């Protein structure tokens, strides 16, 4: 079985993230890392590989040069090989263009199962897995917090909009997993060393038969008008509890007409 895990290299969520003047994420001013939510997808792939025989795990990322770091981190956790799609023309792509590039790379590589995180921690739209499924013409089993893959089927528990669901689809499929699907492992020292020797292939748009006009800012289906920083919340009154902290808080809430 061939598993492709889509992993994204994102600006560190705990740093002060900003937009550039043209309204795209500023990647230069903060460190980037493997999106924490994608580590859960890596973990699920490795668990499937460990419980079955003849399972190949490959990682795929679309992003600038340093996105390789995300692939190396994933390879250090385990798995077999990695694919990096990088091309100047991809810069400024929206989710439609990103999903096109991912889908073509997945088709080229071949797959039985595509695993994704529930959302990227920068854009965070949580729609790329569904777009991938739509483009690949396969079922999408999304937002899974308990995953079983066996006998050509995927079964999972899903926290939907208003209900908890048990859902089942057949392979090939795209699956996205949540941060409740099982804690992700840390790369071991041995894993980090081994990762350096695992194959990592870099592809451009031409390798995937995609024209520059199909991706990037020109192909984007929406345009940012303004990106403005919210004024920081002004720090309010801070009182130390001297035994009347609850009474003071009640007075504040009453004055604000909440109580």
């Amino acid at each position: 079985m061939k598993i492709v895990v889509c992993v994204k290299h994102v600006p560190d969520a705990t740093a002060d993230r900003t937009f550039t003047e043209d309204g795209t994420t500023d990647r230069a001013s903060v460190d980037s890392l493997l999106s924490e939510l994608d580590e859960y997808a890596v973990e699920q792939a490795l668990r499937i590989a460990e419980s079955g025989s003849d399972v190949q795990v490959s990682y795929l990322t679309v992003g600038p040069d340093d996105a390789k770091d995300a692939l190396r981190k994933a390879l250090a956790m385990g798995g077999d090989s990695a694919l990096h799609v990088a091309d100047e023309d991809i810069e400024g792509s929206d989710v439609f263009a990103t999903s096109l590039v991912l889908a073509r790379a997945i088709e080229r590589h071949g797959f039985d199962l595509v695993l994704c995180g529930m959302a990227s921690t920068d854009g965070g739209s949580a729609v790329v897995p569904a777009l991938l499924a739509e483009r690949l013409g396969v079922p999408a089993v999304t937002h899974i917090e308990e995953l079983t893959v066996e006998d050509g089927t995927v079964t999972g528990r899903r926290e939907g909009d208003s209900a908890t669901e048990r859902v089942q689809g057949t392979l090939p499929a795209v699956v996205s997993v949540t941060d409740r699907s099982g804690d992700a492992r840390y790369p071991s020292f041995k894993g980090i060393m081994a990762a350096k020797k695992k194959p990592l292939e870099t592809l451009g748009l031409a390798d995937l038969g995609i024209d520059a006009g199909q991706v990037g800012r020109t192909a984007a289906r929406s345009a940012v008008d303004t990106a403005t920083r919210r004024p920081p919340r002004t720090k309010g009154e801070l009182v130390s509890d001297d035994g009347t902290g609850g009474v003071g808080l009640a007075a504040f809430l009453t004055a604000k007409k909440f109580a």
Partner: protein
Amino acid sequence: MAEILVLVDHTAGVVRKPTLELLTLARRLGEPTAVLLGPGADTATEVLGRFGAHKVYLVDAPEVEEFLVTPAVDALAQIAEGTAPAAILLPSGPDGKEIAARLALRLGSGLVTDAVDITVGADGRPVTEQSAFAATYRVTAQITRGTPVITVKPNAVAPEPSPVTPELEKRDITFGPVSTAVRVLSRTPRERGDRPELTEADIVVSGGRGVNGAENFALIERVADTLGAAVGASRAAVDAGWYPHSHQVGQTGTQVSPQLYLAAGISGAIQHRAGMQTSKTIVAVNKDADAPIFELADYGVVGDLFQVLPQLAEEIERRRS
């Protein structure tokens, strides 16, 4: 006037508040029409009409309940083909976003997810507002291709009635093979309980690791009940098994934007802030004066929540009586 399609979020015809918000926003852009999937038209139609839906498209096919998400995409795509709406609005949950994305791809349209407001641009097309980077940024955008498809977060606007008598139109949909590929084996609706829903509540009272045990969440519930609030929890509290995940506030939980957010025993990690930073008023109780949550708080009490919260509840009750 151009039609604005609104996908109805409901269970057996009981319409959720975010749908009424969508109808209210839709009226800024054109004439709202509602798409109702599954049974419950008898119950739903009156409410949808009261909030301005001129027409209700009914798709009562078993597929929409038996299979995951995609039957809704077929339904909306086929309805949109015949009606050429000026925009399509959906609720911003996991399901709504997935439907919206696939629909936009099929229609060749642009997509905006998690809008917190929609206004009308100079050319009459929608301008959306979103929050970014844990709500430290406000981003306005326009969809430049096709029929704008927009998912909207709860509490974007206060629902305003605008009564009309909706016309009912039953629609038959052809479901594609991929639409019937993921079967829903079982569906357990989340218990609604007596408290307001997290996304809809005007006040949210949340507890974190400082609450120190499932049994102590009774204290959070008590404060919530004196304020008529919903109960929230940090991921630390949820991971510890003290409160259900459906109450988690934050990046991977629910994002709330109430009038008042009370955080007790929560440090204020960036992933938690991502889910509550846009609340109008924030108050916090934490025994660590350096906890980052205090940077956001309009009023903070540095103290032990086991002292402060019972006193708070008693004082509110005393002031009332």
